[in-house]
């Protein structure tokens, strides 16, 4: 908050939020607040690394896709030299948008207004009547604006609107150790199948962030229909804290992942033996990472602030058919205090047999995406939370939501001292620390601090971090 300015109601409320968070509370009203939305866009979306897309979506020179960071429209494009660019979609003459389609291939973007033309690396290539009309204009200064920072990790491209700050590598930190397990497990890596699903829903973006940051508690109840029909096994969908499985909630450098697995068993997310034998490789993975992959049945996770993923085994689209895994990544793009656009991609190992890739994509749509048997039931719930937060009552009564599960006075909750990966792991999944971690980082960034100032979880109690 700028010194000297009178703090707004939102800013005063935010100051109280810090105290709430220490108690494991979070005010309901923050799931629907106009002023907060503007602050979130400026201080969180505007200052973070935001997911743009996977390089496999634009494999050839000239391939492009329209992508968004908050309210800004960009062109995600591979230029003639094979470099990936993120160009602000606004003509340098008078600001018109130069990209017409959602996706395509082109060597040039031509402005519909007066015909300025740009190469697919953003450089201004043509200005009609230049020698007469703009004779002193230096074309090299009038290319499409590039996003300040663009970086890629294992084919996943992230961008930042902030000129400075941590690099993507620093932002992801040791969490890469976990994501490597997904991206490097099959020889040749993972690729995106088809085009992302997109849908607009009337819910605040923090509701889904909460969900992906370790809400193991909701699965058996909200997705009871999947369990009823035996479309997913008890260990994939079942109640948190009751399984025979190895259930861990892991926090690492501000990001989270939850896993279920079986100690000492070869599970490999239920990938079929042929894929495991022919494609899975220890190359690029440490012994511990390999062991994690080997024992894993499912992973859920989130990269702060608006990227989520699910890598699930033991699911099917038909109780009569064999189970198969799916892998999906997603992005929640805030559009307003009560609206977001969901983006969701299905992935598969690049070098897997075509038939298996299609099976994986089918598993993805059967379970997640707008028609998914899991996802259908989640979204309307998030909408309801946003509705409850929108009126007078939430703020006049100062209603606080309870995120206390797993705090020391609520239950016995251990940290797994033997945990094989970086960060730390709660030794069971009946806890809500990942959500507290999310909200604390949210608070710190909104307050203009560094997100690594987030406290209240063991993350900052560990030495040498």
């Amino acid at each position, binding site marked *: 908050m700028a010194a000297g300015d009178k703090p707004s109601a939102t800013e005063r409320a935010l100051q109280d939020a810090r105290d709430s968070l220490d108690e494991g509370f979070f005010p309901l009203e923050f799931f629907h607040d106009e002023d907060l939305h503007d602050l979130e866009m400026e201080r969180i979306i505007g200052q973070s690394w935001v997911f743009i897309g996977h390089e496999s979506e634009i494999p050839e020179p000239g391939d492009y896709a329209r992508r968004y960071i908050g309210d800004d429209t960009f062109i995600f494009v591979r230029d003639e030299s094979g470099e990936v660019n993120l160009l602000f979609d606004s003509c340098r003459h008078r600001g018109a948008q130069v990209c*017409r*389609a*959602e*996706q*395509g291939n*082109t060597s040039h973007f031509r402005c519909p207004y007066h015909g300025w033309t740009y190469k697919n690396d953003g450089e201004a290539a043509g200005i009609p009547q230049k020698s007469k009309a703009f004779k002193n204009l230096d074309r090299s200064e009038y290319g499409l604006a590039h996003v300040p920072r663009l970086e890629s990790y294992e084919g996943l491209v992230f961008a930042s609107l902030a000129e400075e700050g941590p690099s993507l590598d620093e932002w992801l930190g040791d969490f890469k150790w976990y994501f490597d397990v997904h991206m490097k497990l099959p020889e040749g890596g993972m690729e995106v*199948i*088809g*085009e*992302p*699903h*997109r*849908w*607009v*829903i*009337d*819910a605040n973006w923090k509701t889904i962030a909460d969900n992906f940051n370790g809400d193991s508690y909701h699965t058996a*109840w*909200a*997705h*009871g*229909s*999947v*369990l*009823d*029909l035996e*479309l997913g096994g008890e260990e994939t969908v079942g109640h948190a804290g009751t399984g025979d499985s190895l259930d861990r909630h892991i926090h690492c450098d501000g990001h989270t992942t939850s896993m279920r697995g079986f100690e000492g068993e070869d599970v490999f997310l239920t990938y079929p033996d042929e894929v495991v034998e022919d494609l899975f490789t220890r190359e690029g993975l440490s012994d511990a990472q390999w062991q994690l992959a080997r024992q894993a049945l499912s992973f859920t996770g989130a990269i702060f602030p608006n990227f989520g993923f699910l890598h699930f085994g033991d699911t099917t*689209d*038909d*109780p*009569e*058919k064999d189970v198969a895994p799916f892998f999906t990544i997603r992005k929640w793009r805030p559009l307003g205090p009560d609206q977001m*656009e969901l983006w969701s991609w*299905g992935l598969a190992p690049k070098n897997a047999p075509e038939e298996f890739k299609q099976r994986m*994509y*089918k598993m993805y*749509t*059967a379970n997640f*995406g*707008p*028609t*998914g*048997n899991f*996802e*259908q*039931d989640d*979204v*309307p*719930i998030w*909408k309801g939370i946003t509705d409850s937060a929108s009126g007078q009552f939430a703020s006049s009564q100062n209603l606080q939501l309870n995120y206390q599960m797993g705090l020391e006075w609520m239950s016995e909750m251990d940290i797994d001292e033997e945990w094989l990966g970086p960060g730390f792991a709660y030794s069971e999944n009946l806890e809500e620390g990942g959500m507290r971690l999310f909200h604390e980082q949210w608070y710190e960034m909104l307050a203009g601090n560094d997100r690594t100032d987030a406290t209240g979880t063991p993350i900052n109690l560990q030495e040498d971090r």
Partner: protein
Amino acid sequence: MLAERESQLEALLVEREVEQFLYEEAELLDNRELHEWFDHVADDVNYRMPRRLMRENTSSVFSEQGYYFNEDYGSLKARVERFDSEYAWAERPPTRTRRYVTNVRVTRETEDLTEDELFVESNLLVYLSRGDSDEHTFYSARREDVLRRRGDTFEIADREIRLDQTVLSTDNVSIFL
């Protein structure tokens, strides 16, 4: 001359039968009589809703790989039966829908059709309303069906739903189109 009139009349009757079938199907779906609807699904069905793409030079492109639905009999049945569960929250309470089926055309020229199969194109507008709010939305689509005669009715052997939206404007797709 008379023969020609007769075959025209015959075509008209077929068209009328097909229309009646699509209207009745719409009614079953609007009433959420999903099992009764599913009785009209052939056991070799292919039920697809590809993702519509937005491209610069053409208005009607659909993804080759990306889809919302790509169902066979078993997976479609599972989707139907899931709604019997008391935990299928998306449809508790059920979405109120009203389907408007128009522009129905029957063509027989398509290859791979057997004697008793008809290729049918139609437009579909679905009004959706949820909960106790005044909000509502629509799906608009074109459908391409292969209907197969079964006794005095038809079964759906193949359906492709070509939605007009690129970005969906609903929480989810928890109905059948």
